[in-house]
């Protein structure tokens, strides 16, 4: 019974983290049809920004709780700025190209950003454990969990709800969905598609950086973290269906629970499970679980 609870909670925590990482990727794909490999770099930039700020802020001895606002806010800002630069300086010239070509373009961006982070922050690992330990540990029926990890679940729900609300209940969201549905007709109807693209890319990038910022206190921030993460985010997004926010949530839950199951019963399978689920879903439903097949345009 206890193992089951641990698996469930661990799975939920991991799912929440996966959701935050992956949702920006799926949003960008849904609107712009770009599978953004550089999402991992945005994650890394968010993580580095947060880690270096945490290190500095908690060193000064100011009121600790405002540190949270600072490092999360700074991560988001860094993500928005990087996303804006990528979109304006590069991607806006590439729209209309093949989706596979766009993967290669973002792969180039990833390679560049990998080294940019190394040049800015060096190659040594950063530790930002203070926020993690501040939230203490919480006991659930006798088993102790890190409060910081549990709070990730809340953040994921918050992010998911905010996105759902923005997409489905606001006028701008409706415009965005129109662009997703048919870019050319939306353009003809007077929607400023290139503005929608910039905004989407900036928001998606901010979400990636937010994920990095939130993760920074839980691990050591070292070169290469973005490269590892992007493939996980891929798996999640592909399982749920590219471009579907709800799908990303379900994909994250599936992967999270399966991984927790593997970690607690047969740890050798940890990585295998993640990609195994992805390959299985792809081979049965290539468009993902939650995307309805679209009619082919002639």
């Amino acid at each position, binding site marked *: 019974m206890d193992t089951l609870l641990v698996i469930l909670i661990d799975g939920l925590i991991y799912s929440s983290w996966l959701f935050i990482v992956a949702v920006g990727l799926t949003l960008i794909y849904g609107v712009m049809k770009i599978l953004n490999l550089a999402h991992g770099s945005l994650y890394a930039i968010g993580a580095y920004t947060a880690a270096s700020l945490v290190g500095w802020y908690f060193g000064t001895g100011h009121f600790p709780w405002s540190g949270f606002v600072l490092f999360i806010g700074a991560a988001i800002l860094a993500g928005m700025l990087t996303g804006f630069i990528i979109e304006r300086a590069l991607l806006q010239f590439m729209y209309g190209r093949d989706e596979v070509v766009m*993967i*290669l373009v973002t792969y180039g*961006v990833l390679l560049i950003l990998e*080294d940019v982070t190394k040049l800015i922050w060096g190659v040594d690992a950063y530790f930002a454990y203070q926020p993690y330990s501040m939230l203490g540990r919480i006991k659930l029926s006798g088993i102790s969990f890190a409060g910081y990890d549990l709070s990730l679940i809340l953040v994921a729900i918050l992010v998911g709800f905010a996105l759902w609300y923005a997409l489905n209940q606001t006028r701008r969201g409706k415009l965005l969905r129109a662009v997703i549905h048919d870019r050319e007709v939306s353009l003809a109807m007077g929607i400023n598609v290139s503005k929608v693209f910039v905004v989407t890319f900036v928001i998606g990038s901010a979400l990636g950086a937010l994920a990095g910022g939130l993760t920074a206190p839980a691990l050591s921030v070292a070169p290469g973290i973005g490269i590892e993460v992007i493939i996980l985010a891929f798996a999640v997004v592909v399982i749920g269906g590219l471009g579907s926010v709800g799908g990303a949530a379900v994909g994250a839950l599936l992967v999270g629970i399966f991984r927790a199951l593997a970690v607690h019963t047969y740890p050798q399978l*940890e990585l295998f499970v993640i990609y195994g689920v992805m*390959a299985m879903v*792809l081979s049965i439903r290539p468009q993902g679980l939650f995307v309805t097949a679209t009619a082919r345009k002639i």
Partner: protein
Amino acid sequence: MLSQDTTSRNLWIAMCAFVLLAFFLPNWLSFLTTVALAKGLVVLGLVLLMRTGLVSFGQGLYYCLGGYVVGILGTYLGVTDVAILLVITIVSSIVISFLLGLLLCRYREIFFAMLTMAFSMILYGILVKSEIFGSTDGFNIEPASLMGWHPAIESLGTWIYLFTVMLTFLFLQGMHRYFRSPLGFAGKAIRENEIRVEYLGVSPKKVILLKYVIAAVLAAVGGALTAMVAGHVDPEMAFWTTSGEFVFIALLGGITHVAAPIIGAIIFEIIRTFAFDLAPYSWQMILGGALLLIIFFLPNGLWSLLPTRKSGGSL
């Protein structure tokens, strides 16, 4: 088509040149060339798929498979004969790629790219967690031998270099013939318009399956040769960045000529070696920038910089 095919002759000449070079190249350079040729083979397979309009982000799967077949047989089972190793590498890659290919030949575009990537990451996930094969560190490989003859360690690199040159050019000759055969042209036709190919009575799925298997064999042989010359394998060979590197080389060389992947691979290895020495923290940036420049200005790769001859027979 009516023009004289000079490619085959040129390839023989190039092979003789490479063989002669074995006497002059210093060790580090022949090592570098061997690795470049081995990677060139992998990229040759990838180019075959790209000519069909499919980009595989998972050639690392077979690259790693080839490496681990050589490693496991050599270190754990005591088989070091290159001929046996090569045959087993090819057979195992055919079996696996045929099974996966049955599934993959239904997919196109990004779905093909992602599913191939997922498969190679599965292998990575398994290898990272298998302690008998050294987890993330991998393991060292016993030196290769040929029919009971064990070359001295100092000259082993040269022999593997010669072996690699021979194999590479045999494969190049074969692929050159294949590219000019009806099946080779079917790839281009599928890229242009798959439905019309079906109208002509050719099954695109079968054509793609065959190409996928050939690409897998080339990648596995490339991996096996890399393992032999490096004397070491690790799971990184199946990681998606390795596959990304192959895609990069393919774009660098271009897909129009059979020798382009080899030249692309040699240029790539040279750039990498020097960039890594001069600027260890910014060489990826150089690669990324080069990739973007190629996509922008040279969509057909460096090969398109060569002056084109008047005849159209260079395909």
